[in-house]
């Protein structure tokens, strides 16, 4: 049967004929890989996964439980009570992604989307200075090929962080829609940090509308992570939930949003120490590790027992 007689739109017919498929029998003998782009076998994906580099968090304990750091092509959600260090972790990642690959970064830029106004430039400068000091210290110790290159200055770190401030949920959704085009023009962006994703959706919202909007936003972020092979980090707040007769602390935005991320890390207090706990991951074990927020940024916690507690 001729393609011209098929009950499909004229535009589609034109595309098929110009590609050379003039009859139905030609189409039916095609293998699906021609028609459905994007399917990969598990074997190919295994090799790709092994090659993926991760972004260090500057705390060796957290890197260990994460299998090396924050991974690309994943949406990672980090949640915790106020004051636990979510924004600090976000800023640390925005700085760390710019480190060269042999130092634990990806040599790329960072996009920081701020919804609450908690981004302090002075703090970023402080963390960037500490980072470049650490880098030049290790470079003098190990004489590698990069010893000839001038180390990164704090100013360079600041230049590579692209900052957006959103003030309402419509701006947030518009920005996420725009990110696709933006990142295709700025291909060296390797991490998108949204701090925090919850803020504009917590006041006065029709629940059904919120679920739909959040579901759509989650899918767009997933697509972004996969398409451009970058890491997406979402910072979330906590709320109380009434379950099993008591009030429990849980991440905000409800049950449907909890499926929007690939990995979830919960930050919590244990006595006087801050701990990070892997709550959800397709390939990592549940584990928790202590960390500390210092003047230099996120570092390992300096306590006597530095055991990693495996669940």
């Amino acid at each position, binding site marked *: 049967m001729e393609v011209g007689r098929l009950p499909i739109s004229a535009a589609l017919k034109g595309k098929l004929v110009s590609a050379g498929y003039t009859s139905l029998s030609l189409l039916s003998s095609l293998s699906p890989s021609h028609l*459905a782009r994007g399917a990969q*076998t598990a074997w190919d994906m*295994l090799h790709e996964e092994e090659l993926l580099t991760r972004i260090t968090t500057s705390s060796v304990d957290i890197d260990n439980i994460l299998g090396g750091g924050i991974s690309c092509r994943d949406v990672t959600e980090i949640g915790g009570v106020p004051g636990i260090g979510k924004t600090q972790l976000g800023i640390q990642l925005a700085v760390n992604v710019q480190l060269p690959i042999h130092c634990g970064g990806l040599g790329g830029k960072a996009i920081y989307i701020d919804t609450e106004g908690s981004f302090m430039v002075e703090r970023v400068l402080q963390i960037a200075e500490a980072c470049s000091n650490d880098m030049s210290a290790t470079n003098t110790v190990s004489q590698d090929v990069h010893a000839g290159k001038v180390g990164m200055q704090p100013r360079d770190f600041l230049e590579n962080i692209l900052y957006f401030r959103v003030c309402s949920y419509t701006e947030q959704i518009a920005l996420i829609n725009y990110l696709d085009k933006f990142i295709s023009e700025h291909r060296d962006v390797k991490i998108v940090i949204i701090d925090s994703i919850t803020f504009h959706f917590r006041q006065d919202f029709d629940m059904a509308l919120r679920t*739909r909007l959040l579901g759509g936003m989650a899918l767009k972020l997933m697509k972004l992570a996969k398409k451009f092979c970058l890491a997406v980090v979402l910072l979330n707040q906590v709320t109380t939930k009434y379950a099993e007769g008591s009030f429990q602390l849980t991440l905000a935005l409800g*049950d449907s949003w909890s499926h929007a991320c690939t990995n979830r890390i919960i930050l919590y207090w244990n006595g006087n120490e801050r701990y990070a706990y892997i709550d*959800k991951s*397709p390939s990592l074990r549940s584990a928790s590790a202590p960390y500390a927020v210092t003047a230099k940024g996120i570092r390992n916690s300096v306590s006597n027992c530095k055991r990693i507690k495996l669940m």
Partner: protein
Amino acid sequence: MASLKRLETEFPILDRDFQSFCALRGIFTVQDFLIHDLQSLVADAEQQTSSERFMQAINQVLCVIDGLHRPWSNGVELMEDAQKNKHVLSTGCEGMDFLLRGGLHKGQVTELAGPSSSGKTQFCLLTASTVAYKHMGGVIYLDTGNSFSAKRIAQFLNQISRPAFDEMQPIVLQKVMNSILCQSVFDIFSMFDVLHCLESKLKSQMCRGDNDEILIIIDSISSLITPILGSSGSQGRALMVSAMSLLKKLAHEYNLAVLVTNHTVGGDGGIPKPALGESWKTLTHVRLLLSRDCGSDTYHVSLLKHPSAASGKAAKFIINN
């Protein structure tokens, strides 16, 4: 749906006169013919000059329509089909297999609902590995949350084959993993695209006689449906129903098992219930509710709906790391 004009080449009796006779009554396609009142059409035709030709033409169209629906089958044929084709795929987890009376049934759509981090993705990966290894069949994995982990599949495969080898030989591992195809879909329309491509591929494979694929996994279908459900107008629900009817058609015609995952929302009294609402409940054949004890490897699953088993049964199992 074919228009009467197009049918003229195959059946010359549906000539221009008949077409204009039908056009006067608003009948342009076979579909219009179906919804028009047949008796009044026959009465009108008898009053025309060339009534005999028109009656023959009407009968011809009715024959065409008759040829379009599938043939009737009786209980014996259904039993033979069930025994020959509709086998059961073991999921790799004994507790789940026991609950499902053997495992995932080919030709049926199984839904796995559970709160976040309750083991749905782990179970999907385990089932994919088991089916690829034990049943030597192709698995299509549609991933909406970038949570397909090839590393975890390799771990499961090593675990399944451990009685035979210490670690699977790379050649065997490669062959098994090559039969698992993973594709990321991020909206319901691309899922439709993928399923239509799959349908044409399966149709051509069926003509040739070999049938590779035996399992489709969609993790999770609720994240595709939630953004469109509930807005003003019922387009969301219509898309949901057509997606499920396409999946059921693929499952039945090409002997596939389908596994979809769903999330949960808070129900009465804070007890989680599966998402996607009341209309969704009727769309799948088997429904399971999964939960996990906090911080442990023990999973609890209960059967909400099954065509041939009593609902309400529960089981416990452990998936090792």
